[in-house]
């Protein structure tokens, strides 16, 4: 019998959103608890997914496959494998924490939480969809709430940031649409002889006919998908939307934006580009690795030059995502790609922590200018502790989770791109530089009397941060829960890419 756990996990927040929408005004105080309550089952299901996910089986699990639009042979096809499992867990966790973190939103509470839950559904959908059409719908569905969440609840320049974010991603998804159609018309389902959007069918080269056989089209499709995903990752030339979107978005939204949305790009590459166009993946690999390297170095240098704390963290995200791309573009071993997926998960957790911390300080001091602070460790020691841990995780200190993923990416990439990896390794110095410099300017040094009375971190904020902190430390010492989950699938993916002639 098909287990409907995936459909539940995707659409349950939508129910919550509906309830919130139709709550009468006087029950406004109920909205936040309902929003929170609608993400708790997600956590439970994520846990159930985690528990009975077969580690050794590389193919899709918890599959739900029913036909949806017969006319175009589009199926409602859900499934989870090693690559999407960590992402599903990450989304479930971060959604719960973000709602907890956005407790002090007071403007249009109804709109905020219903849009947020809609976003949650969209994100979950993207990670579980196995039909390109369904994938694309969830992908677009994500844009709408994000646009409003930034555009309405954002900071001073919110409209500019929201528009920029929206247009950038929209351009990306247009490219993706073109590629999608090319896949559709270039593929035929062996059983029924119809065109198909289904990833599993697109993945076996036998199903490709007509245009999808001709290398120029394949090259074009891969390029289109690459640009579409590069905007989302973001890789350097397409990244300028990220700092603006982050700076203007409210705390919880930039947590979700950095924590989950950035992973869509890399997830897309592994889910779509690699299995369907493996020969192109191999052809493009050096170029993508180079872009990854540029992102790492460029992101790190830009981060160092920032005055605004949130922008600094945004650029550090670009740099960390560069590691993912570098790790992913290696096919001669599985170490790199395992490191990449682990880095996606770890980066999600760490940036979430970083943005929550920025949120804590922004709520109190209403300024994010790094030089405006100084000596905060005196009156906010616990906060300094949390930030210290987050910064150390950010710069990849061994014993914390991101070191392992960064090390794996570097070690993996070293086999084929020796010089690039050595250059990428220099980033650990620059990253250490800007994180510690920020740490010093904010926390150390003489007590800045302007912030004399800043209250210590509140229990709620601590409740958001502690689970993340625990994960960062635990995964640092014992990363196997994630690694053995993704191992089988990635070995299969790499084999797939290498095997194709």
């Amino acid at each position, binding site marked *: 019998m098909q287990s409907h756990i995936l459909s539940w996990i995707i659409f349950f927040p939508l129910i919550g959103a509906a309830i919130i929408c139709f709550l009468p005004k006087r029950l406004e105080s109920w909205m936040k608890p309902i929003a929170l309550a609608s993400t708790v089952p997600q956590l439970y299901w994520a846990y159930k997914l985690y528990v009975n996910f077969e580690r050794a089986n590389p193919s899709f699990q918890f599959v739900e496959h029913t036909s949806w639009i017969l006319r175009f042979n589009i199926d409602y096809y859900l499934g989870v494998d090693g690559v999407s499992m960590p992402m599903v867990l990450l989304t479930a966790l971060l959604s719960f924490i973000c709602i907890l973190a956005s407790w002090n939103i007071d403007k249009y509470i109804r709109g905020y939480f219903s849009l947020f839950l809609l976003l949650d559904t969209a994100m979950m959908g993207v990670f579980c969809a196995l039909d390109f059409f369904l994938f694309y719908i969830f992908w677009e569905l994500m844009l709408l709430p994000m646009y409003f969440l930034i555009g309405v609840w954002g900071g001073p320049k919110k409209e500019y940031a929201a528009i920029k974010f929206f247009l950038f991603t929209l351009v990306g998804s247009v490219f993706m649409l073109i590629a999608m159609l090319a896949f559709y018309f270039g593929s035929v389902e062996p059983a029924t002889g119809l065109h198909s959007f289904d990833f599993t069918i697109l993945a076996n080269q036998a199903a490709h006919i007509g245009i999808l056989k001709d290398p120029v089209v394949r090259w074009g499709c891969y390029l289109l998908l690459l640009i579409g995903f590069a905007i989302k990752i973001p890789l350097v030339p397409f990244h300028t939307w990220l700092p603006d979107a982050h700076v203007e978005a409210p705390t919880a939204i930039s947590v979700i934006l950095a924590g989950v949305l950035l992973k869509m790009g890399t997830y897309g590459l592994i889910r779509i580009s690699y299995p369907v166009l493996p020969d192109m993946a191999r052809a493009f690999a050096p170029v993508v690795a180079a872009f990854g390297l540029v992102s790492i170095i460029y992101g790190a*240098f830009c981060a160092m*030059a920032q005055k605004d704390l949130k922008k600094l963290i945004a650029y550090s995200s670009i740099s960390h995502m560069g590691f993912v791309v570098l790790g992913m573009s290696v096919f001669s071993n599985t170490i790199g790609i395992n490191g990449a997926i682990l880095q996606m998960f770890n980066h999600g957790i760490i940036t979430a922590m970083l943005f929550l911390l920025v949120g804590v300080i922004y709520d109190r001091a209403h300024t994010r200018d790094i030089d405006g602070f100084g000596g905060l460790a005196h009156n906010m020691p616990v906060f300094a502790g949390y930030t210290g841990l987050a910064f*150390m995780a950010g710069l990849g*200190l061994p014993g914390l989770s991101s070191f392992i993923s960064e090390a794996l990416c570097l070690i993996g990439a070293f086999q084929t791109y020796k010089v690039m990896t050595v250059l990428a390794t220099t980033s650990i*110095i*620059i990253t250490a530089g800007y994180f510690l410099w920020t740490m010093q300017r904010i926390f150390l040094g003489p007590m800045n009397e302007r912030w004399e009375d800043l209250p210590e971190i509140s229990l709620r904020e601590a409740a958001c941060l502690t689970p993340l902190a625990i994960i960062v430390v635990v995964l640092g*010492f014992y990363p196997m829960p994630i*690694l053995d989950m993704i191992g089988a699938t990635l070995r299969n993916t790499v084999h797939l890419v290498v095997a194709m002639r």
Partner: protein
Amino acid sequence: MDPTTFKDYLFLIPLLPFAGAAINGILGRRLGLRAVHLIALGSVLGSFVLSVAGFLALVSIKSPEARRVVSVLYQWILIAGQTGSFHINVAFLLDPLSSVMCLVVTGVGFFIHVYSVGYMHGDPGRARYFAYLNLFTFSMLVLVLADNLLLMFVGWEGVGLCSYLLIGFWFSELDNARAGMKAFIANRVGDFGFFVGLMLLFWTLYVSSGQAVGSLSYGELKGAAPLLLDAEPILGLSVPTIICLALFMGATGKSAQIPLYVWLPDAMAGPTPVSALIHAATMVTAGVFMIVRLNFLYLLSPVALSVVATVGALTALYAASIAITQNDIKKVLAYSTISQLGYMFLGVGVSAFAAGIFHLVTHAFFKALLFLGAGSLIHAAHTNDIRKMGGLRAHMPATFFTFMVAFLAIAGIPPFAGFFSKDEILFSTFNAHLAAPGLGKLLWLVGLMGAGLTAFYMTRLVIVTFFGEFRGGESAEEKLHESPRTMTGPLVILAVLSAVGGFIGLPAVTHLPNLIGGFLEPVVALKGGAASHGSHSAALELGLMAVSVAAAAAGIYLGWYLYHKRPELPGALRERFKNLHAVVYNKYYVDEAYDRLFVRPVIAISRGTGRFDLGVIDWVVNALARATERISAGIGWEDLKVVDGLVNAIADAVKYWGYHTRRLTTGKVNHYLYSVVLGLFVLYLLVLIT
């Protein structure tokens, strides 16, 4: 305690300090002060006891070759590739080398913990201090006991973190924090080299061994090491050389050798026991330990060894020269540490690994003692500047005597520890055959000069601080008092160790067993080193010994003469060689050079990319936006005129007809009837026509 049972207690050695750190760190403030001290000291003592137990277990194993205890805790990373797999375990290895290091780390560490109780008296952040100290001990133990290179790297960076935290412990002054950051960044630069070396090592072995060697553990590495030789050279250098040099870059960062030593003098900003523990006894020796641990790699490339030796010797001489002119007692000791480390690297460079470790051990004793002594001096005189001290001999007898023992040890006066270990190194250097012919002799000479300088600046230090009259002003004089027992206790113990320490490594000529050499034998089983001992005549060895003692004596006499007999002379000399003195005093302006060469350009680059990012890319995006705006405006204008015109025309027409038809609906029923009938008639006509 036989080795098999000890196996499952081995992991407790690092775990105890970690537990101590966790408890103090999290619950620190809530626990009472006594509890904090108890936990901190207790955990390190526990580790020390276990280390001793481990040492005994090892000794109890009869055949030296089998002296190793490996306990695998759990599988850390496993990535199964198509054929081979990359598997790293969290595993601890106790063999003679790591056992010695364990003893040093936990032993000296424990004394320093006891000393810190007294030293940090009255400091509000004590719980945090002891937590960091325990965390440091944990990291150092992980580094020492690690069974594979990656786990060692975890310890390696862990100690870097703890030194950052401890240097910047009193973070209210910005320059302490800045010193901490400087230390961490410098270490990080070294770690960059270390990591590159690690990657290159892994891949060359992994590929050439057909994906068999996938775990970076020392056993496997040692076995597969020869494979490195046949890997084709990169950039003209053989693969092992590149790996060793890269790893050595890491070592220079960690152990403050020539290129990356700048952070150690600034690290004195931290509390003195920290400097004693981290920047004298344990952390800085990590580099030496790493090279000795990977001796089978280094032996594969004589070029790398020569580089290590040369850098070591140069650093020794260079640091000693700076130490002469420093007035801050801790700075003097810092440069002395750098120079002594130089000796260790020299020893290791000439493949006398056992001698290097022996010097490491003795250095740990007397340097820790010197720092702790300096600590109690500062504690009493409330200043670091030796010019404000003087004549403390009367006021602080205990500190004075222990300091004198350490002084004799470091200067290399025969019965004391320093003499034996330093002499061992110098002897090995003298008759080592390195890459370049005669390099051994040259390095020996440099080492000898360094030894002389060491004796000189130590004498200067001792005389200026302890002899003559107090120059610290009346008010400070009353407050001069001997440090409490908790501080002097460790001093005495360390003094004993400094005195006795030398006898564990007696030179071959005395035909007494070279305990430490023998003990380390299996780990550093190698062709050079000990073997070269035998071939040379005892006479040569005795001769060299005499020469080094003479150098030390000369240094002491010169120091005594200048600073005791004719105190005005140093002033005069300083006048005469003003600029030379200025240059040396300011550390050859190396710090400023680094700042201008590295730090400022990096900031400039980052500011440039920042502006570039904002300027160019954003400008491109905004330009795109503006361009589309203008185009759309253009289209808008044109559209306004033509299309709009058309649209408006239609609109007007509709309005016109609308108006008229409106008048039709007069609301009078009969008019409607008219239209009904009219409609009927028109319909009828239509039917008629078609």
